[in-house]
């Protein structure tokens, strides 16, 4: 489904991502772990087309390297950035509507998906006419995930969905990720919370200083006694 080869991202003289290669099979949930600054978010943004990068990215066999973010959406890739980025002065309903921008002509389908999202996140239904900027952090996280799903993606890129949220909300978010996995959505999940991510993932990659330091089945990575070593090196 996703095949990333030799991805490199530079910010001026600094190389944030240095030759990262990843593969995700259809319906697989893969987590990308690593310390702060390991290049996880840059990797996701580059795959989504929002950061200039070199290397190749293939989605469903199509070479999409260098595509614009809007074109990636039409290719079935949806991104939930760690900054969440709700549109603060738009209502919850308007935020969801924009999630379906690429398929806006399919009005019935969009309306049906909105009901599906409300079933998945009842809180959003209660607040659908409220400005998104007034939601709590957890509600905003639910909104950006729901908004991304509104495009009916084949591949979901999730960046730090649990960041800064209360433990009970984190549990809800992970339960929802597990549910999406059950529905056979392909997910690439970046997380600081390694134990939670490994519990839900099929496989994992560990990034260190912009390179893949380890990869393997989630259970194996979780069992590795040297996880901390992998994270921090030396």
């Amino acid at each position: 489904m996703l095949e990333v080869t030799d991805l490199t991202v530079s910010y001026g003289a600094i190389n944030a991502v240095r030759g990262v290669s990843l593969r995700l099979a259809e319906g697989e949930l893969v987590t990308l772990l690593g310390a702060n600054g390991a290049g996880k978010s840059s990797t996701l943004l580059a795959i989504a087309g929002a950061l200039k990068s070199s290397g190749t990215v293939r989605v469903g066999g199509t070479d999409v390297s260098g595509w614009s973010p809007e074109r990636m959406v039409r290719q079935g890739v949806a991104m939930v950035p760690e900054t969440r980025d709700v549109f603060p002065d738009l209502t919850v309903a308007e935020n969801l509507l924009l999630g379906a921008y690429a398929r806006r002509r399919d009005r019935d389908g969009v309306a049906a998906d909105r009901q599906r999202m409300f079933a998945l996140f009842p809180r959003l239904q209660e607040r659908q006419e409220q400005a998104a900027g007034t939601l709590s952090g957890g509600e905003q996280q639910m909104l950006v995930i729901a908004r991304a799903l509104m495009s009916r993606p084949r591949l979901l890129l999730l960046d730090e969905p649990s960041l800064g949220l209360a433990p009970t909300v984190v549990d809800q978010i992970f339960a929802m990720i597990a549910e999406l996995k059950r529905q056979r959505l392909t997910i690439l999940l970046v997380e600081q919370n390694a134990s939670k991510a490994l519990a839900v993932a099929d496989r994992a990659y560990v990034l260190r200083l912009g390179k893949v330091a380890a990869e393997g089945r989630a259970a194996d990575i979780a069992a590795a006694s040297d996880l901390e070593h992998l994270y921090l090196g030396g």
Partner: protein
Amino acid sequence: MQTLLQFTIDVLSLGGAYALMALGLVIVYGILKLVNFAYGELIMVAGYGLFLMNGSGLPWLVMAAVAVLLAVVTGVLTEYAAFRPVRAKSVTAVLITSFAFSTILQNAALLFISPRPRNVPLPDLFSQTVAFGGILIPARNLITIVASIGLLLLFAFLMKRTVLGIAMRAAATQFRMARMLGVPANLIISTAFAISGFFAGVVSLLWIGRIGSVTPGVGLEPLLVAFIATVIGGMRSLQGAVLGGFLLAFINTALNYLLTQDLLQFRDAFTFTLVILILLWRPEGLIRGPATGQRT
């Protein structure tokens, strides 16, 4: 009572024109975080469009529509010629290209038409007056009020109810995120310039309808007014631009009524003093937009 009615109508007609000017500027600023200094020239282009069609025998409304269309096309061209090639490179580059485009258009008007004022065709209605509530009101003021309120309502409706309008509001706060949802950047930016050109065209009709003629520098005052109105209203918000436009009109009109004849020539000094006071009180403008806002 009559003075109050007169005053209200003066504020509403000037404010309506100011609000449209400000909206035309802020719609581009909201998306690109950049003031389009060639905005005044869009107003000029529509004015010369009217002038060139003088004597063509076309009905005035057709001439007006063509003039507005000319401003829309020039607005979109500004984006293609001056903004798009350097947009991703640096803010300074875009600032300079927008100045350059403004200068080129002004000089073209100086060179190919004339530095002197040129009369534009206007319907008789613009010079008629209407008696209302015991006072005489120039019909063009009533036209300005009706046209600007109508357009503001239409604009609000489109921004609120259409997917493209909602996408434009979204792009004004989180441009990159909007793109990651599939909203095409180029479409949004071109639409912003087209709307800006449309407002400039309508402003041109109303503004030149007041003064009756067009000069190469005719757009300077509307540009300045639009800029001040957006700054006091809040650069990040469309409502702020409208509010700023009406407030500035209120200040100007009030000073017109209050100042004695010898002080009136210093009206702008009084206006700007008040603007400074407003900004000292609310440096962000009256309506604070969303805190975030990044360029492409």
